[in-house]
């Protein structure tokens, strides 16, 4: 086992850790942080795959590297949207977590729109 595989194991741990955080942490912002850990774990796994595919005189397979760059940008956009929605939720309702029970009722169309 060389050190590249160590990064693979670290990636597996990050994915598990992040997933646990997403499921169990009640606070929305913390869920978003944990989601990012899962994302970076998956990206690191791609990095390990790329590193192992080093050939033809370059340090790694460039295709997974391109996947990761695309993935990082997409994950950032998603985090930005999620954070903004969490802030909106906070300013509308004062909530920064999901209610423990699922919503019993959806918005009534007769209800006035929010300000």
């Amino acid at each position, binding site marked *: 086992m060389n050190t590249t595989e160590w990064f693979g194991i670290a990636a597996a741990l990050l*994915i598990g850790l992040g*997933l646990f955080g*997403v499921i169990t942490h009640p606070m*929305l912002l913390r*869920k978003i942080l944990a*989601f990012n850990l*899962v*994302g970076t774990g*998956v990206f690191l*796994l*791609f990095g390990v*795959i790329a590193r192992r*595919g080093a050939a033809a005189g370059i340090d790694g397979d460039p*295709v*997974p590297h391109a*996947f990761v760059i*695309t*993935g990082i940008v*997409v994950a950032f*956009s*998603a985090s930005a*949207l*999620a954070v903004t*929605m*969490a802030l*909106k*939720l906070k300013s*509308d*309702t004062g*909530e920064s977590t*999901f*209610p423990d029970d*699922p*919503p019993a*009722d*959806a*918005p*009534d*169309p*007769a*209800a006035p*729109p*929010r300000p």
Partner: protein
Amino acid sequence: MMHTLHSLLETASRPHGGGDLLVLAILLPIVALLLIVLTGGRFGRAITLASLVPGLFITGAIAHRVWTTRTALVERVGGWEPPLGLMLRADGLSVLMLVTTALLVAAVALYAPRDFRVPAGAPETRTSLVFWVMLLAIWASLNSIFLGHDLFNLYVALELIAFAAIPLVYLEGKKGTVMAGLRYLLFALMGSMLYLLGTALLYSHYGTMDLTRLAAAVNRDWVVALSVALMTVGLMAKTALFPMHLWLPPAHSGATPAASALLSALVVKGSFFLILRIWFDLAPAFTGTPGAQAVGVLGAGAVLICGVLAVRQTRLKLLIAYSTAAQIGYLFLIFPLAKGAGFERALSGGVFHILSHGFAKASMFMTAGMIVAACGHDRLAELRGVMKTMPVATIAFVLAALSLVGVPPTGGFIAKGQLLSSAVLSAQWPWVVVILAGGLLTGAYMFRALSSCISPAPLSFQPLAPVSRIREWLVLALAVIALWIGMFPGVTTRTLEIGRPAPLEARP
């Protein structure tokens, strides 16, 4: 626009190829939405309607070419051969989905303008900008899903769908919709991460993301099983399969009617379509296995539990939304059913269900929107007399309901008939019970919705706003298409055959 149209005509007239059409089907709505962002929401409606014409033309040209040549149309984007480059591919299944999407997007675009007017003098409003941009984005991203033939390209398309669909949930700004949207977003994000993890596992062993190459190479081993499981779970979260359906009813029923129609009829089918690709094209050896049975159990849970929840709803839009969560369950029954002799029947039953549910559900949500506009609410107990004010729409609602319940000769009847016969062919009797029980539940909640609309009006009833005749005929047209699918099932089955991999039993 003119330039696009010109090169389009040129492409269509080329004797060979025509693969450029596949790129154009995605590129055209994207260019249109970029132009709306540039010029502002005031031009949203005009640009969308202008892009519908070439868009429908492109879809028609792809369908025509695939239908007449009876082979799949492929395009290597930029001329780069897979596995280095990526490929788009339209088989019969893609064509059915492309046509359905184009028709539904056109219907929504014609239905919606009333709700997104820009007052004179203003350059745009929040809703006008966001709605038209996201409508086109949903069109582009769904087309990417249906045409994508590369697992990573499909990941980007999945993310596009999420970014396009979530704003539609909170667009109207009602209380509770941000919460619903955020739930949806978190499920969608985790779902696409699990999907991406699954693709990473496949890439680590096979060094490609191309579906054809992977399908030829994958073994039936634990790595492939794990990656199929990860991708399926991720996509199930995005499709809102029970027990991950929590975000769907509040999200769909809180949105504007046009948006609800898009979300229920199309968006959830996008991620389901990918599950279909994975199970039937990438790794067909896994259908009918214990893993597939587990997926089917979740589907059965959705059919039964969400069906009961739908019966208990007191508001029309929520009832329709819970019905979506229940009807999605049927789609997941096809994975255990696709076993041995039932393989092809299960697939075609699933496809009939996607198509007829799409048209029927879009029609229903739009009708519900008209009812809310006329009555100011959608409380079932107080909807008496609606039929008198909108007779055409009521007929549409009845037709759509018949299709959902599965009464002959609607599309829903063919769908459930195919599912039943594949259950019989593969001798899996418990699923027969689930399908029949689900049909009874659908009948129960649809009767509940209809009985209040049809019952005679109190004398004092007056609609709040005049009912739009265009909208009435639009919802009727959609319901009639759901009916038509069932009356001429040969068109669908003959299209579905095109470009399918060889049947499982014919393989070594």
